């Protein structure tokens, strides 16, 4: 019920106060925003702040006090009679966040990158332990001598003599080009 009270207070107050009040009591409040509500009655028209669906089923403030009610009455007349503050107040009655407020950046990326690196580190430790305790001995074909004999045989067979392996070998001077 924090939303309703702060909405009430936030009518003519600065935006910062409203944001500060609504962002407490949320899950990752260190992220800087995104209030989390508990269970919602889905059989009633809902309010939402969504970039892709701009007009929710109900206005933000349902329960209007007397000042709000009188403002709503004034809204029924010509809108040129409304002052700028009154127009903003009517907007705030109807909507919780403006589009820039909805799009405001969060600090979530730091958590994501940090978590990524933590898991990279853990994986690195696992891989290192695995290399030490799990892997069997290397096949004999990995040894230096065997590799040298293998390369010599590949050159003798003229593997890829045009653009590839043997093309890099100088057969006259018996060295790499």
């Amino acid at each position, binding site marked *: 019920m924090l939303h309703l009270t702060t909405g009430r207070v936030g009518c003519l107050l600065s935006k910062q106060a409203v944001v500060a009040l609504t962002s407490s009591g949320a899950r990752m409040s260190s992220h800087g925003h995104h209030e989390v509500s508990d269970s919602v009655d889905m059989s009633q028209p809902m309010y939402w702040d969504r970039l892709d669906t701009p007009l929710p089923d109900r206005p933000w403030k349902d329960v209007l006090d007397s000042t709000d009610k009188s403002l709503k009455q004034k809204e029924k007349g010509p809108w040129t009679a409304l002052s700028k503050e009154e127009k903003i107040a009517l907007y705030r009655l109807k909507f919780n966040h403006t589009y820039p407020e909805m799009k405001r950046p969060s600090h979530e990326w730091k958590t994501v990158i940090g978590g990524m690196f933590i898991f990279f580190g853990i994986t690195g430790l696992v891989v290192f332990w695995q290399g030490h305790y799990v892997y069997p001995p290397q096949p004999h074909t990995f040894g230096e001598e065997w590799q040298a004999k293998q390369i010599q*045989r590949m050159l*003798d*067979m*003229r593997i890829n*003599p*045009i*653009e590839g392996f043997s093309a890099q070998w100088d*057969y006259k001077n018996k060295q790499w080009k």
Partner: protein
Amino acid sequence: MSLAKPAMRGLLGKRLRFHLPIAFALSLVAAAAFKYGVTEPRKQAYADFYKQYDATKEFNNMRDAGVFESVRPTGE
């Protein structure tokens, strides 16, 4: 405070008119770059290799290195 009415129609057409010529041009550039950066040098490399290629000499070199099973090196 009255803002200009935003564009309501022709958004896809506008995007296509901008992006399609660019996409077409970049594709042609990519194809040309591959042709003249990869395929033409490769064809030239093969041509140059086979100009000076003596198959019999190469065969004898390989035979003497001992990589064949059908013929032993000369003098065995």
